């Protein structure tokens, strides 16, 4: 079994947030789950093309992280980031329309699944290059510092990205220049089809930035309470101390790397074991035990999520494809230097 044991510093007894907040977390995780499931179905029906990387199983790591941030903080993620956009508040209509390649998608159909973006909500992408977002995150943090704000940038990437050259370069620079970045490693145990112990000499990823000057900590990425708490602590430390930190979130994706992945690199037993730690029923059951919701409310939340996803699909279906004449739009900012289309 390749799965990691429970985090040694898992704090089981965390305080729940207030009831409205707790319900919101459950709703958002449920929305992400139902959205991702539907996106998979739409892909199988050829409504969505290219590559589709789903976050099913990772919802606690996503919502816990997003809810550790202020609205004025920045969140930047990877090619597996529909959930991050949704958690930041991007309407599911706009994300689904982007997947369908329609003109009302959040990126006008130019980016697709791997390149979501929502500038208004400070969701800064959406990147197809593994590790490509780390330097950009450091640049955003530099900008925050330069403008003398107390903004923090949360940079999400996977265990696989911790081996990319940008990991070493960016953590060194962030530590050297004391940049306000929280580097969050979403450790779902695999870089595509290669397990953690087959791709990283050091598997204790919370330690991987120490030699570069970035201290790390770990959270249970299947537990939204633990994730929000640990990431939240890191964000506030970074906000006040103005230097980077790393948080490793132990999580698991229940489906393949992408829709094209037959998952020959892991056993069905392993997946089943992790599905028993599904973050959404776990949190729902906790809230029910604590009297924040009852069974009927949980069912209503789920139905509500499905209804929102239905509406998103309807919106996406009825949004037009971009006109061929728009192919060259936005290659450049047209102004004094780039004045039109050139040969």
């Amino acid at each position, binding site marked *: 079994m390749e799965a990691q044991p429970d985090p040694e510093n898992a704090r089981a007894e965390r305080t729940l947030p207030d009831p409205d907040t707790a319900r919101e977390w459950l709703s958002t995780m449920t929305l992400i789950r139902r959205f991702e499931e539907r996106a998979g179905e739409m892909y199988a029906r050829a409504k969505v093309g290219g590559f589709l990387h789903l976050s099913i199983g990772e919802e606690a790591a996503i919502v816990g992280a997003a809810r550790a941030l202020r609205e004025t903080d920045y969140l930047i993620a990877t090619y597996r980031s529909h959930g991050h956009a949704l958690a930041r508040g991007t309407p599911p209509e706009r994300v689904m329309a982007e997947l369908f390649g329609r003109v009302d998608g959040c990126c006008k159909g130019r980016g697709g699944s791997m*390149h979501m973006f929502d500038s208004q909500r400070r969701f800064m992408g959406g990147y197809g290059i593994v590790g490509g977002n780390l330097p950009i995150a450091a640049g955003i943090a*530099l*900008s925050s510092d330069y403008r003398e704000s107390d903004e923090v940038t949360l940079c999400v990437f996977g265990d696989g990205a911790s081996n990319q050259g940008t990991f070493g*370069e960016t953590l060194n620079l962030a530590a050297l220049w004391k940049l306000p970045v929280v580097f969050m490693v979403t450790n779902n145990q695999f870089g595509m089809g290669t397990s953690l112990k087959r791709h990283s000499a050091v598997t204790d990823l919370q330690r991987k930035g120490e030699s570069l000057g970035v201290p790390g900590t770990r959270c249970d990425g299947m537990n939204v309470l633990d994730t929000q708490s640990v990431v939240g602590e890191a964000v506030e430390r970074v906000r006040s101390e103005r230097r980077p930190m790393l948080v490793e979130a132990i999580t698991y994706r229940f489906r393949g790397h992408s829709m094209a992945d037959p998952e020959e690199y892991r056993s069905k037993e392993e997946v089943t074991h992790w599905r028993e730690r599904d973050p959404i029923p776990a949190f729902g059951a906790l809230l029910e035990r604590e009297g924040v919701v009852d069974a009927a409310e949980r069912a209503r939340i789920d139905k509500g999520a499905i209804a929102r996803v239905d509406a998103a699909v309807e919106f996406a279906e009825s949004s037009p494809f971009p006109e061929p004449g728009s192919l060259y739009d936005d290659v450049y900012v047209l102004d004094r*230097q780039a004045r039109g289309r050139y040969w």
Partner: protein
Amino acid sequence: MSELRYRDALNQALREELARDERVLLMGEDIGVFGGAFKVTAGLLEEFGEGRVRDTPISENTIVGMGVGAAMTGLRPVVELMTVNFALLAFDQIVNHAAHIHYMFGGQARVPLVVRMPQGAGHQLGPTHSHCLEAMFLHVPGLLVATPATAADAKGLLKSAIRDDNPVIFIEHESLYGVRGEVPEGEDRLVDFGHAAVRREGSDITIVGVSRMALTAERAAEGLVAEHGVQAEVIDPRTLRPLDLDTILASVAKTNRCVVVEEGWPHGGVGANLAALICEQAFDDLDAPVKRVSGADVPMPYSKPLEDIAYPHEPQVVRAALEVLGGVRA
């Protein structure tokens, strides 16, 4: 007007733009305390401080990527790469990120980033330190590409680049840094992209010279008239994206013959692209195929006699022009 060295013209541009807009900042290896590997940034750290003139570790891809992120969030960074050779390490951030972000995110984010770097051979620096890669940047939609050959253009184009909201690859030349030229005074004297300069008028043949080769072409033109009675029209495109093709086509309409001179490799080079464009747009104006003079299709050798024949000098340009003209003119 004042007479300035190319490097000092660049220094002035950076100083003026740093003073004019507090969002401008510089990042690069040894640009601060050391004063810049080629002294382009000399004195700027002392004047503007270490918040705005930042010495970086040796991490080209990440330095450029940080420039991208900072540019996306309100700043106007100017990143210096020590030479174009090291830009190869940063190609992911230059192409997949800087050049693509505005398009792929549906226009939601701009990248007002300038990446400056010198290029060129001639100092026996050998294969990994002598590249001319403007063709690789010319290839990428989303980038603007400048190749100034004079001090005035260096200053005016750099100021334009910094004020523009597109990512700009600003290619200088190691052998041009010490060359003097007349530079108009005034902090708002900009040179716009997409306007080629006719360095010399003539009606017998058009010679387009890129970067340092614009000066080589001018000298070749002097030789052509003195020894062969050939009046060459020399054009310096100044920017490759956008390219002022109209000026080149107007010249070809007049001369009916064209030679393109570049220091980089021939295959897929600037000349290859320009020859295709001229062929497509002005085929009927041509009395001969467009001829390319380029760097040799080899890694740049160290040994001096080999290096000397591995990139173009005046005699090669003269010979090429005469070949296109089909012999010596009276």
